[in-house]
């Protein structure tokens, strides 16, 4: 029987974060939620409490916005205080916009690049320091298959996610020996509110199936997780394509 973990999640109110938080709660892990909207966090906290009958107690939360790096440290400190320790920090939050929207709106592009790369990295640095101070732990961050290769539909979003994936790999190499396991999750197309209204490609996944895979990766310390698993193959094929082919195709 595994010992229950103390997990702080940024982005647990929606999509894959919601599904993952529920899996943690249902198996008895203790949770602390971070996010932008206090009321929304409160509702998710109640949901997780009812589901987490194995770990009775309040699920607490704190405000944390990836657009406001000045609050990162305080939110993580609040998590540590509420949980009485910290074993894992999970980041599922991020900003998404289609390539067309980003091309036509420079301010939106700046925000997406800042949130998905710079600020997520800054947040991870804060989390890293705290986890290392406790002798290690798990840092599980949602990047994307969009960061695997420069592609027409995700030029800007993919660039931010590529930077993030690269950072997470470096972090894992540098600190794994000190007990900090870094897990980079690369979801393919998953049917969530983030992708609502987009054309659903083949191999689309459901948030709960992704959550199950990520949970297993957290337990095993798997450094890179594609979810659904078929995307590992899809992205391998895409990485192998020569440039002149990538230039021709629209994917």
């Amino acid at each position: 029987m595994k010992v229950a973990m103390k997990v702080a999640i940024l982005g647990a109110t929606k999509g894959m974060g919601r599904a993952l938080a529920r899996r943690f709660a249902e198996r008895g892990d203790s949770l602390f939620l971070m996010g932008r909207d206090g009321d929304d966090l409160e509702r998710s906290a109640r949901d997780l409490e009812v589901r987490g009958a194995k770990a009775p107690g309040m699920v607490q939360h704190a405000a944390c916005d990836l657009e406001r790096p000045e609050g990162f440290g305080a939110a993580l400190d609040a998590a540590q205080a509420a949980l009485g320790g910290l074993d894992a920090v999970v980041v599922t939050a991020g900003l998404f916009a289609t390539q067309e929207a980003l091309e036509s709106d420079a301010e939106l592009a700046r925000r997406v690049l800042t949130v998905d790369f710079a600020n997520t990295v800054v947040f991870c640095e804060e989390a890293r320091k705290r986890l290392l101070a406790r002798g290690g732990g798990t840092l599980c961050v949602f990047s994307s298959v969009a960061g695997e290769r420069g592609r027409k539909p995700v030029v800007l979003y993919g660039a931010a996610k590529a930077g993030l994936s690269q950072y997470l790999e470096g972090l894992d190499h540098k600190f794994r020996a000190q007990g900090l396991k870094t897990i980079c999750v690369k979801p393919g197309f998953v049917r969530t509110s983030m992708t609502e209204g987009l054309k659903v490609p083949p191999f689309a996944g459901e948030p709960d199936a992704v959550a199950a895979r990520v949970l297993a990766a957290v337990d095993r310390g798997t450094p890179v997780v594609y979810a659904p698993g078929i995307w590992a193959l899809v992205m391998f094929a895409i990485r192998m394509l020569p440039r002149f082919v990538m230039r021709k195709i629209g994917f």
Partner: protein
Amino acid sequence: MPEPILSGWGHAPLVAAREVRSEDLPAAARGMPLTRGLGRSYGDSSLPAPRDHAVAGATLADRILAFDPETGLLRAEAGLSLSEIYRLFLPRNWFVPVTPGTQFVTLGGMVAADVHGGNHHRDGCFGAHVTRLRMQVADGRVLECSRELEPELFRATLGGMGLTGHILEVEFRMARISSPWLWGEAEQVRGIGPFYDALGRAAADWPFTKGWIDCVSRGKNLGRGIMYRARWATPAEAPPRLPKHKKGFSIPFFLPSWVLNRASARLYNGFRYRTNRPKPRIVHPDEFFYPLDGMRHWNRLFGRPGFTQWQCVVPHANGLRTITRALELVNKRGFASPVCVIKDCGPEGEGLLSFPKLGISIAIDVPVRSWTRPLIDDLNELILAEGGRIYLAKDAFSRPEHFQKMEPRLAEWQAIRRRWDPQGRFRSAQSVRLLGDQP
């Protein structure tokens, strides 16, 4: 990008429309004519009217907001599915007070259709156990309604097919159960007459009763079938383990429509009738409540043209005679699939458009063919003369004049609806077809 296609469980009708989902249901629902749940109503209940091109989708709004293990009071967002409630609460010895024949429905849908189940003779509809609703009404306000707060809106919403406003949150009382297993028995019944009597007899002793009828056989076999009776097992009877959630298998594609015909239905029905296990035994809740859920996408068995269900309730006075004639009619004009259920209903509940009332109910799945519409016309005329009515959540083919004559409560319901929605913002393909809403 081509318009996506929406349909109910019966795949008929199909409409070009989008479902807009969000975790933030009040935001997704704003300005929408209707909210849709898991789309398990058979016909056009969850589809937008011809000139609307989108409905809100509730399924991402699925958080449990409160559960009191003392009283069993549960409050959740309307998109929470019954399958989640079942998965989370059965191991804790709690279950929904009323369940329909599938677990793939949302709480909002259960309220909108005011669903009933095998315990209707004892516990009424789901709505009878609902204590409070949070709704977004036509003028955009979000408010709570109950038997004390805005009682008219509450009554009109139970069974109101989502046409009184967007149901955002549902609070209801769960039922405490003695174990997560059922104790049940299944008895062969030789014809429709004996069936009628068997249901009546079992009602006194068993909380859950229902019958499967072979609607394809004729003559003396007409309406033969299997009568199921069950109650929650006592802790002493129940196996120590929890019922395992079986994943089942999936029908991967639409079968050609000729696969389901009179002969194949008869073959299957004969097999099912003869292989019944009559011995009383411990029964998995899936097997009793959700026998069809084990086969995902079973609606594909009916082929591309789709199917519909005709479910009626007829008062006891002429109940037996009427349903016998209904079965004969189905056999004469077309044929029924093996999915046929008979159930006695208890008294009418408080929901102003709720389907059940005291009498006998049959539900018959029929494929969509050239004879389907005229058959349903004839069936509706038959029960209309006997004071019967149909279940909106199953319907796609009834005529407005038939439905309006079946439903003496319609005027009262419409009056309340007009007070809350004077501009007629809420509507569905079904309400345009049956209730005279502006298309």
